[in-house]
């Protein structure tokens, strides 16, 4: 391996190793935080004529991360909704006309609804 390039190693923080319950709770807590963020974005986008590029970029990254993490935790509905949002944002980013933005708003609203229905001690579907 590249011994000269990678000399040091930093420890990766894990919420609570080997504790399924603690990890799942940490995920649910993060979901609530994500829900607030997505809901605020959703409200802002409903009033905006056009979605600014940095917001699209942030939205895509958040949706991608949530899609992967929710899938790992077997919350398949949320994972699929987040993936749909990510793909709709990707499509909007590559489209010059603003005709993809309604799809983004629809996917975002759907995701917010799904996360909102999630209880603190929710179990995977």
């Amino acid at each position, binding site marked *: 391996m590249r011994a000269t390039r990678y000399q040091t190693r930093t420890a990766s923080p894990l919420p609570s190793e080997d504790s*399924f319950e603690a990890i799942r709770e940490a995920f649910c807590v993060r979901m609530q935080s994500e829900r607030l963020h997505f809901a605020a974005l959703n409200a802002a986008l409903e009033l905006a004529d056009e979605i600014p590029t940095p917001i699209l970029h942030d939205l895509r990254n958040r949706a991608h991360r949530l899609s*992967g993490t929710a899938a790992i935790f077997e919350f398949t509905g949320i994972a699929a909704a987040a993936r749909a949002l990510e793909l709709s944002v990707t499509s909007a980013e590559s489209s010059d006309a603003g005709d993809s933005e309604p799809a983004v708003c629809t996917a975002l609203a759907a995701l917010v609804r799904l996360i909102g229905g999630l209880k603190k001690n929710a179990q995977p579907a």
Partner: protein
Amino acid sequence: MQLESHMEELEHTSSDLCDTILMRRLDTAQPCRVLICDDDNLACARLAALLRASNFDVEVACSGEEALTIMNSEPCQVLLTDWQMPDMDGLALCRIVRADQNESYVYVLMLTVRNSKEDLLTGLAAGADDYLVKGAPVEEILARLEVARRITHVEHSLRASNYENWRLSVTDPLTGTNNLRYLMKYLPRELARSRRYGHPLAVLSCDIDGFKQINDRYGHEAGNELLRSFVARSETCLRMDSDWLARVGGDEFMIVLPETKVTGANRVAHKLRQSYVRSPVETHAGPVSFTASVGVTAVEAAHEFENVSKIEHLLRAADRGLYASKCLGGNRVTAAAVRTPT
């Protein structure tokens, strides 16, 4: 000599099995260490918990660079990596792992939300062994990792087997020391190193005096015990971290002394000769006394290296010294210079 007759043949049969990688000691029991690489620490934590519960050793990296650092510090058999990550993505990580000359194979399982056929083909083309879309049931993730564990164990077994085959191919089964194949593989390397750095190199050619008569008188088993004892006594006179010997014929041995001038080699040769005569070897047929003749040669100066374009020149000079010792009645040491090729 038998040595010379095998020389040319063996020079062309050097095997890749002799690579230094194979010379490293291989543990018999190999744990399966999985490195999880994902920029989401919760995803990492969940996967780590699942894998630890399935008896995998788990390491976690939150970036491609961190993953490389971990693999650099301690080998991992399996890399379970996300695709999309900041800075270095899973594809780039995969390509680096494949490009690096790892001591052992790293099985890469890519775990990503990207679920198109094109994505799968791209992941495999980057060097992943398997590809799984996030959202797959936990049972499937674990089943795929069991496949990875199985394959890495097979790879480890093959590597260990290759190493054992190589070890056997360069070891004299009777005495346990190196054999002619080893000499023909590693003496050229010693010579090349000495030439490159301008350091001296000495070679001793040793032969047990009257070995045939010893065999005839005490039997072959006693002769074998004598050969083993010869090796054991020789090794006590050598620097174990640099000097080495090889059995190149029935009772013929070559001893290689890196970083040694002819004066030092002569001292070692006399020490060897004295160790042989000091006491008889206890064999099942009774105590057997023996002596040995030694030929000494060395290359020291630059012009001498020019005369030694092949190791045969070095070995022939040592053999000339040995022949002279034999002609003078045995149990003696004779030095011989490398001749200038005509």
